[in-house]
């Protein structure tokens, strides 16, 4: 087992895709995270998969996220990669505008991305282009909105006995 440092991953990615394609570099409890552009995501995952040393060949998880304040980058997708040989994890994030939430699919590389992308579509309305079967998975088919978006409050807005102020919220 070789020791791969996070700096090595950054260097490899920047060497392949250029310095301006990799930004938002941060570390959280030892896990490196980078942000990239939508057009780089599929080549980047292929590059990391086939890299002779890094070998990010396991997609642990893939999930959506919604930031209504960030104009033009409201919806995000987070890819949790894991290199089992080196025991290194990596998060890659991409952001897309809510008006045009189109992201290329990675089902060609990871079979497991199929349901994960369906789930992100179901809850956030992120459209994964090229996905073999992009339909809702956990919610009912005739639902006409994407419930995990922040504009849908969880509690009934018509109730007046739950005043946030009184509960310190």
């Amino acid at each position, binding site marked *: 087992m070789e020791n791969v440092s996070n700096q090595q991953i950054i260097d490899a990615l920047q060497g392949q895709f250029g310095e301006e394609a990799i930004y938002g570099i941060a570390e959280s409890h030892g896990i490196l995270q980078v942000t990239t552009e939508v057009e780089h995501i599929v080549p980047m995952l292929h590059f990391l998969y086939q890299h002779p040393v890094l070998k990010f060949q*396991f997609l642990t*998880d893939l999930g959506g996220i919604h930031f209504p304040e960030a104009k033009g980058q409201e919806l995000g997708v987070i890819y949790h990669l894991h290199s089992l040989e080196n025991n290194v994890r990596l998060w890659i994030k991409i952001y897309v505008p809510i008006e045009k939430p189109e992201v290329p699919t990675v089902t060609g590389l990871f079979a497991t991305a199929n349901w994960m992308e369906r789930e992100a579509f179901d809850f956030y309305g992120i459209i994964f282009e090229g996905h073999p079967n992009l339909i809702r998975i956990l919610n009912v088919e005739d639902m006409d909105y994407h419930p*995990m978006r922040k504009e849908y409050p*969880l509690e009934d807005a018509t109730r007046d006995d739950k005043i946030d102020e009184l509960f310190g919220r």
Partner: protein
Amino acid sequence: MSEVALVNNPNVGLDRTPKSGPYVNELTTLNLGPTHPATHGIFQNILTMDGETIVDAEQTVGYIHRAFEKIAERRPFYQITTLTDRMNYCSAPINNMGWHMTVEKLLGIEVPKRAQYIRVIMMELARLADHIICNSILAVDTGALTGFLYVYQWREFIYEIYEELCGARLTTNMGRFGGMERDLSPVAMEKIKKILAELPAALKEFESMVVRNRIFMDRTQNVGAISAERALNYGFTGPNLRAAGVDYDVRSLNPYSSYEDFDFEIPVGTKGDTYDRFLVREEEMWQSLRIIQQAMDNLPEGPYHADAPHYYLPAKQEVYRNMEALIYHFKIVMGEIDAPVGEVYHSVEGGNGELGFYLVSDGGRTPYRLKFRRPGYIYYQAFPEMIKGSTLSDAIVTMSSMNVIAGELDT
């Protein structure tokens, strides 16, 4: 009366000689589920059958979707514990403690050694309960009911140990941020010692009944096999991945809660078929017993929870006598304490594989986003690939050995 019934029965007097022609190539659609005793949960499989052979399969999930990730965005951290144990309800303490460890990572709470050891004991008991269910019901699905009865009483006994620690049996809500809500009581200690002494005999009895049983072997060997490459590509983790020959176990690769202190082995299979999955789970039970024995032998003295008054709910008698305890009790219960800004991922080895929690906190009282990585949801995708070309009875056995839990599928 019976004569009339016979006359009205359209099948009586029917010509049953086989016909030739296009009749042979007709495909049938078969709905396995949503409520079917063999699925052990609410999910549907739409099978396309050519006679007895499965040509194609498609799953429909979401029948018990309860929007946990959405609810979690509105709840203070400690209230989310009750959501986690409703995911994989066969090994609820692992889910609870995985969530607690995630939040402790975010808050930077150091958990004392004794609490970590108690957690290990409870998590391994939960793994035992989970594997007892999966393996004995697999045996039931192949027709061996007796073995199931031998080991199932021990699962009941494990639930009694849960009761000693947290008062609940199935959806446990066990532990707190920073440790356990109470120490191991003498009764709990005695019960754990009893299980260590007596479960091996029951397990051996079960194994001698099933493992080399000709019928069981014929029903499970080379059934529902998946290669290591396909399993990795499908995101398999846990016993199902190890049965395919990959020794990935979160407990040894990224040890948490002092797992590095214990000596245990990771069993792996070779073919990734139903028989291998069964054997891997059997061996994991023996290893779990080993871990519990070591934890009981070396159980450190000391406090059973961290000194984290902002997050650890004080004891009830303290709340009545002590001003600070009353304040913290109120603040915790009302969810008035803000968490720091941060982003963490923590994973534990659940009953079915890598159970991950991805938590984004914006500094508020609730998570901004919480994503559960449920192993069952991820590997159940591979089910059609694993059963194509096999018979219906093989599909049932394959599904049973994968240990698909509906609560975990649907959050």
